[in-house]
């Protein structure tokens, strides 16, 4: 049961243009959403997050948009840089028992072409 879905396994963008990575989820109990970036042979690193009570969160070149009615979120990177080339994982969090449980998508591999 894939509760968090990233339907695009890969994306290529020219340097300087906007990268848009998409994520869909099914569980309406999710209350927090995160994006992680992963380079080969490294662990995922936290990039940006958004609470379910918001619809937009911006941090520098990175903006996450949340559309709760559509159960959809997206990550915008503008302008894209070659160093942004990595796998991006969308994650959603829900309160389970005494703590939070995190569910991850399958990832989108972003390639930024110089």
């Amino acid at each position, binding site marked *: 049961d894939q509760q968090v879905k990233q339907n695009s396994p890969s994306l290529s963008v020219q340097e300087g243009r906007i990268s848009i990575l998409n994520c869909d989820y099914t569980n309406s109990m999710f209350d*927090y959403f995160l994006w*992680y970036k992963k380079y080969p042979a490294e*662990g*995922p690193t*936290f990039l940006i*997050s958004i609470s379910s009570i918001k619809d937009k969160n911006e941090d520098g070149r990175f903006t996450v948009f949340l559309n709760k009615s559509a159960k959809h979120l997206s990550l915008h990177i503008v302008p894209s840089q070659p160093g942004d080339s990595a796998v991006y994982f969308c994650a959603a969090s829900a309160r389970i*028992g005494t*703590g939070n449980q995190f569910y*991850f998508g399958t*990832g989108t591999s972003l390639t930024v072409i110089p």
Partner: protein
Amino acid sequence: EPEVTQTPSHQVTQMGQEVILRCVPISNHLYFYWYRQILGQKVEFLVSFYNNEISEKSEIFDDQFSVERPDGSNFTLKIRSTKLEDSAMYFCASSRGTGANVLTFGAGSRLTVL
């Protein structure tokens, strides 16, 4: 910046052997997790741990897996009798607590079962 430390970075073992993967979470974090990623596949949740006990586990986390926090700093994942399909990157993660919080991942331990 505090980080999650995992050892070993790579372990090669024979099928049927026991393996212990070690993790040192961030010191003021209370929740601990193990995830794995089989090559080319999604990041999969294995188990979460809080207050010295398992708080949730996935179907993957069967009787051959166990976790413990023996000394208040290390958090270990033991695989009793490894199978070929256990070959994967195993990621340890920790988080501060409930509410809006972030998982911080280690760099991962690559397990190769021959």
